[in-house]
């Protein structure tokens, strides 16, 4: 019943895919620990789905190797890899009932009827679809179909579960619900999950680790909080949440000259270096004192319930600020000039690789 292959970590070594002149994935190196939840995050065309399809075995890599528990699986056809997979749009078999769909991976493995039925029932319980065994996929809602696809991918106890944009077809509320369920499911089954998405919120909330992709290259990989707090490049900072980008040059005293201001930074590089600072809007406080304090005129201000999204005009261009609305120090009325401040360790120096996504 368990996977035929080892259940160790999955390793991508220089995995690449070219279609003629077009490079879909260039030399991806990735180590995915057994039992972890990794998300491949990137805009469309970034190569994230190509990587998933190479892991699944549907796309043959142009170069590089794929190792599972140390064993080379690069040449194995998809059915020999025995990975569970949830396809985009779910790809449920329309001529089979829910139970038959879930039993499919067991049936093709020649597992007897009694064992099959027990396993199918247990897996349908796991995804809370016990009452739906005899329905056809067409009679289910999107969220229920998604759970059938999950059950079908998990029923044969695969070492790896691959998820190709599993939540993209659902509406926002359902998506949030299923994110939570997916996370709980991962904890319960303890298998390696590899998820592909373009939704940064989904990536942050679901994953143990996120690999951010752009133009066929893995730009940065790490835990969600690490990626958000310490983006390596401008693309990562802009794709994961919002950010202000400030160009500056490090001075002799360790401050960063940025337009008319000398900004304090917690870890400045050598004097004379040109740097790009990424500053998250929620790390700027309005009407308060701090290491760096500047003034700006309010260009626009949107009330969002929990807070205000304010854009301030400054000598170095517009700066976005998110300020909690409750007990705010100042009222960001449009046209008024107000002060803002941030701590020396609030900004991160990033590599200027790309226009933000």
């Amino acid at each position: 019943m368990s996977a035929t292959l080892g259940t160790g970590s999955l390793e991508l070594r220089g995995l690449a895919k070219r279609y003629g002149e077009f490079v879909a994935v260039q030399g991806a190196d990735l180590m995915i620990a057994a039992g972890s939840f990794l998300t491949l995050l990137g805009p469309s065309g970034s190569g994230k789905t190509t990587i998933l399809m190479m892991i699944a075995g549907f796309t043959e890599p142009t170069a590089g190797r794929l190792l599972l528990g140390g064993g080379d699986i690069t040449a194995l056809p998809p059915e020999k890899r025995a990975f569970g997979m949830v396809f985009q749009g779910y790809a449920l078999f329309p001529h089979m009932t829910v139970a038959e769909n879930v039993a499919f991976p067991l049936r093709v493995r020649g597992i007897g009827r009694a064992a099959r039925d027990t396993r199918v029932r247990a897996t349908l319980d796991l995804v809370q679809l016990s009452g739906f065994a005899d329905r056809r996929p067409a009679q289910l809602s999107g969220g229920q179909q998604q759970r059938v696809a999950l059950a079908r991918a998990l029923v044969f106890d695969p070492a790896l579960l691959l998820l190709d944009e599993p939540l993209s077809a659902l509406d926002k509320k359902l998506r949030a619900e299923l994110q939570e369920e997916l996370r709980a499911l991962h904890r319960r089954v303890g298998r390696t999950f590899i998820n592909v998405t373009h939704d940064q919120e989904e990536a942050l909330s679901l994953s143990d680790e996120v690999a951010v992709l752009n133009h066929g290259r893995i730009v940065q990989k790490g835990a969600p909080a690490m990626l958000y707090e310490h983006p390596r490049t401008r693309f990562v900072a802009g794709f994961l949440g919002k950010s202000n980008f400030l160009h500056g040059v490090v001075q002799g005293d360790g401050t960063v000259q940025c337009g008319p201001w000398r900004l304090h930074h917690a870890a400045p590089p050598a004097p004379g270096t040109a740097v790009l600072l990424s500053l998250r809007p929620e790390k700027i406080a309005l009407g308060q004192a701090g290491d760096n304090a500047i003034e700006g005129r309010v260009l626009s201000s949107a009330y969002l319930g929990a807070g205000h999204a304010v854009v301030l005009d400054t000598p170095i261009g517009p700066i976005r600020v998110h300020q909690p609305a409750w007990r705010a120090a100042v009222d960001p009325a449009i046209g008024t000039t107000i002060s803002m401040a941030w701590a020396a360790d609030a900004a991160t120096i990033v590599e200027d690789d790309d226009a933000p996504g």
Partner: protein
Amino acid sequence: MRRGDMAARLRRDGGWWALLLPAFLLLSVFYITPILQVLAISFTEPEPGLGNYQRIATNLSVQRVIWTTLRICTITTALALMLGYGLAYAITLASEQARRWWLLCVLVPLWISVLVRAFAWVTLLRRQGLINQTLQGAGIIAEPLQLVWNEFGIIVGMVHYMVPYAVLPMLAAMREIEPRLLAAARGLGASRGQVFRQVFFPLSAPGLVAAGVLVFIFSLGFYITPAILGGGRTLMVAEWISLQILDLIRWGLGTMMATLLVVTILVTLAVFSRVVNMRRLFGGA
């Protein structure tokens, strides 16, 4: 207001129906009425009553022609479906450009007269034909094989004619199958054979049934191909009817068989229209 709408709709729809009227009148006066009259003869000639129909149970010649027709049609349908399924499968999997050439190759025979094709098969299959000469030349057979003027010849000609009709409905059904389902099946551990048996084939089955009905019904009324390739020795229903009416002047018996043919076709359609979507068969969406 409402009544005005109704009147407008009636005028508009009435206009469309009026377009059908000439064709409808033409068909009823010159086609449906004569057919009903001919079919009625089966109850009146040579004397009023069901005498002609009793022959189905008593007359050996009548029984033989019915069984021959059913046997030939069943074998033809089975062979045309097998060949057609393979073709349709290959076309479904082919690239866009290859698919166009395949389709052309399937459709070309449809544009050649059935008469030409039947005689072409005669020249290939007869005793001094290409096939017998080649086999004799190669020393595989000593005596020429009897390939034509029997059931074998009829079936060869009919299968050749029917394959395109088998391919088209099956191709339509197969192209509706989402390729992602096949990839999913493989990803879940199914071998190529299992993907075909458990996913592709069941999903293409409606097309197979539709093609089977179409080919079988077409085969029942075949006239030219059996007449030429059967050489008058193996009779199918259509040729038998023509023989009764034109040569033996037994109108009653001939029209009885014609009625039987029409009823068989209608019953087959009625049964299978419950199983498959008949609109797919006749080109509807």
